[in-house]
């Protein structure tokens, strides 16, 4: 009947119409599938990174301060013992001058604790940014790959590989507070008429550098 169709016209050119409709449908289906996969992968990334919430960063911040606070406490205790021993040796411990020196140490401790807490918040913010960058990279990969299973696996891997900033030991924050006493002690030990007891006993002596205010004499 094709001759008739040709004669009266209106017949479609071969089965082009069906073929093109099928091609368009396939093209659409593929794109819809890709979009669905990208959205699925994106949801997987969001789920994997949901663990990095405010409590997580609060915990990190606490870990940061927990690392430095004992060091401050230890240095404060050592510096205070040394100062108490020095002040006691000079007979000025129970004086307003001595009280002033002790409170200066406490001030230095408070400043150090303030600084550590501030840095802890900054470190948590830095980590938040780092985690967000990683998430952004995964979003880009997800759009390129459109393979939700692979992207989710990579997201979980990346989420578990997030590392915090490196922590370094605290410097001696009370060194400057004790400088005056160290200088005095050194000068006193070299003096012809030393004032400090551990400098008057003869032989090698040392001011108490640590511990609870004890000093060693004549070693």
């Amino acid at each position, binding site marked *: 009947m094709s001759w008739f169709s040709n004669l009266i016209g209106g017949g479609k050119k071969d089965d*082009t119409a069906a073929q093109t409709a099928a091609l368009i449908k396939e*093209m659409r289906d593929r794109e819809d599938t890709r979009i669905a996969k990208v959205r699925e992968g994106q949801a997987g990334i969001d789920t994997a990174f949901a663990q990095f919430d405010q409590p997580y960063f609060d915990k990190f911040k606490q870990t940061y301060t927990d690392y430095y606070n004992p060091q401050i406490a230890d240095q404060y205790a050592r510096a205070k013992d040394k100062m108490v021993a020095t002040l006691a040796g000079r007979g000025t*411990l129970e004086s307003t001058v001595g009280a002033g020196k002790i409170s200066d140490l406490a001030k230095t401790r408070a400043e150090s604790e303030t600084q550590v807490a501030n840095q802890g918040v900054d470190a948590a913010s830095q980590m938040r940014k780092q985690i967000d960058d990683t998430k952004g990279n995964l979003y880009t990969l997800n759009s390129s790959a459109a393979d939700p299973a692979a992207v989710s696996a990579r997201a979980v891997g990346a989420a578990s590989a997030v590392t915090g900033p490196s922590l370094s030991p605290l410097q001696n924050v009370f060194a400057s507070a004790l400088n005056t006493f160290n200088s005095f002690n050194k000068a006193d030990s070299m003096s012809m008429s030393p004032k400090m007891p551990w400098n008057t006993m003869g032989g090698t002596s040392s001011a108490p550098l640590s511990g609870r205010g004890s000093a060693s004499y004549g070693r």
Partner: protein
Amino acid sequence: MLPIAAAITGGLASGLGGLISQREAEEDARRRTEARMASLRRSLARQDAFAGEARGHFDTRMGDYAPGVQDTRLADAQGARTEAITSNITVPTADDVPYSRSAPAVVRGTLAKRMLGVFNDATERAKTAGALGGYGDTWQGNALGVADTGRRIATVNDFSRQEAAMLPMEQDLAEAGAAKKPSLWGPILSAGGNLAASFAGRGGF
């Protein structure tokens, strides 16, 4: 009379054939154009959906900058940082110093007063540091929010770009599918009419 009638009939047939061919060509062109336009309309509808989705992400983020929102966030950030700092400050006590029992009360009082002063000063400094750091925290939060919205819009834009890239191909395919062969009536009538007119012009068949 016969040649004249044949010439007139041939001319009419030729004209009718041309008319049919022209109408069929016009109909074919119309169908092709309509197919391309239908593809374009479908694509525009999808693009509208993408644009709406992207606009939704954008509007949500812009909500962060509505009147009062930033003030609230700044106050929250400043409060959080201040709390983080103040809670880390050890309260100094005069008991830390091993005074003898005979230590003058004025010295004990001076130390207690100075220790309290140290704590109060540190707390005030913490508030100042918290107020200052709160600005940075707020704007980092804003930046992260904008980055998140940017990623989500970028994803939608990727869909949109792909849609735009597919459109010409889809239009070409739709046009090809809408095309129909012209009938032979037009050419047959035109040819027959021309033939009849030609014979008539020669004086008969």
